[in-house]
């Protein structure tokens, strides 16, 4: 089943084309990695999917993105973002308690549920529950970087999204914390569709089933991660994964 159907999609910052006529389909409950050298448009592409780029002045787009057959330009962006969670490069918990970090999103969106239960299940799913269950009312800022990032994932999960977008979620973390997040991504992929931007090719190879390679705004190659890393079809893909540039 296709979650995102992206058709000839381009993004312009003023006159500069940062994403160039990209077409691809993202499949449900898979982990798709987006790789490519810095500045090639990975973040811009990812942020188009939940319309986070709406907030950037002078940004225009061309082409269409369908989210479960719905054109995202024609949906209410707030509704869209409820169904598409996002995790950022640096952990960005709110300066509130751990508990409030989890329930804030569902609360403002008018969800009705048992908050204690929601907090527990969200933290369980990210493996944080045992670590923080005795200090739910402590500030989230007292957690370690890795815990903060897992809290941010828990916060996204609490909204019960279909998709989770992750933009280099481990780039600010140490190897141990990174390994935990990678394990978590694997677990979550059973229930969620995950797109992960990474500049770390080993990470892409470890966690994803499909990989999209971007270069200079263009989608160069897209396919099963195994194939892309072992027998790339494109010369530029091969150069990149063998470390000849980037």
């Amino acid at each position: 089943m296709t979650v995102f159907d992206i058709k000839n999609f381009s993004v312009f910052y003023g006159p500069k084309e940062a994403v160039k006529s990209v077409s691809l389909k993202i499949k449900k409950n898979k982990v798709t990695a987006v790789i490519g050298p810095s500045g090639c448009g990975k973040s811009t592409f990812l942020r188009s999917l939940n319309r986070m780029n709406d907030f950037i002045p002078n940004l225009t787009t061309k082409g269409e993105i369908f989210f479960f057959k719905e054109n995202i330009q024609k949906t209410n962006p707030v509704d869209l973002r409820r169904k598409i969670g996002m995790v950022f490069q640096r952990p960005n918990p709110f300066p509130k308690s751990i508990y409030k970090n989890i329930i804030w999103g569902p609360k403002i969106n008018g969800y009705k549920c048992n908050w204690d239960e929601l907090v527990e299940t969200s933290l369980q799913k990210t493996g944080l529950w045992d670590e923080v269950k005795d200090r739910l009312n402590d500030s989230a800022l007292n957690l370690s970087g890795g815990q903060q990032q897992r809290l941010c994932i828990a916060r996204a999960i609490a909204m019960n999204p279909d998709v989770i977008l992750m933009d280099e979620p481990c780039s600010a973390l140490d190897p141990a914390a990174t390994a935990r997040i990678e394990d978590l991504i694997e677990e979550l992929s059973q229930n969620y569709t995950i797109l992960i931007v990474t500049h770390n090719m080993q990470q892409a190879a470890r966690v994803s089933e499909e990989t999209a390679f971007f270069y200079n705004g263009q989608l160069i190659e897209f396919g099963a991660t195994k194939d892309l890393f072992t027998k790339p079809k494109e010369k530029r893909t091969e150069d990149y994964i063998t470390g000849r540039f980037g």
Partner: protein
Amino acid sequence: MIFKNSLFKKSLSTLLALTGVLTLSITLFSIILLGKESWSFFQKVPLKDFLFGTHWAPLLEPKSFGVLPLLSGTFMIVILSISLALPLGLLTATFLSEFASPHWRKWLKPALEILAGIPTVVYGYFALTFITPLLKSIYPPTEIFNALSASIVVGIMILPMISSLCDDAFFDFPISLKEGALSLGATPFEFITQILYPASLSRIGAALVLAISRAIGETMAVTIAAGATPKITLNPFESIQTMTAYIVQVSLGDTPAGGIEYQTCFAVGALLFILTFFFNWIGHKIMTRWSWELS
């Protein structure tokens, strides 16, 4: 290197040290003077009568030294001007930091800061000749000298301080937290009221306390526009007198130095000093306690 010459460096640091010592001595000297004159005042008037007396008439017979009417006048001005300036300042800062394009920002910020540069005397006459007549046309029983008119201009005077400090706070706010909020399906309004404001409480509080200090100490506008009638009232359309305005009244009058009338100035001044000091201390407490943490 600019400071190549070590002699120049040495004399510069000596000069700086001297200015520091000078500032400190002036402050110390003022405190000692304030303390000494207040001390001899309180030899004649019991502290209790001063602090809790409800009648202030040191220049008339029979003399009476209850400072509460002046305190009430000062706090009326503070409360009214803050009620005007805090919401307006917050709104302005929110607009500047969250909605204004860089172009608007470039013009609005300096324009606001000009408000702070206008001499306070001008504000006083503006209140007396423009705002008071306006108030009178809306509500005829308004007195010529009244607390509301003065509060409005004091509010305008402290508005730039509040909006500028809050704007700095909001502008510094990490963009990543804003994106986090929006990515959870928040509207900009929800982000502003539920994340930005609570997280900025310490800095809003600091701005507020500084503004209160400023309003307490404000002198010219209240002397000109609020009148010289020490009284305890809740009616902002009446004439009142603030602590600062009383000090001006005595300083400008022909009260002989050394007499008890003259010494009242120092007693009121000492109270003013303690109040301002107290608010600054509170401000500091808020800043260290509340920073970013739980909200």
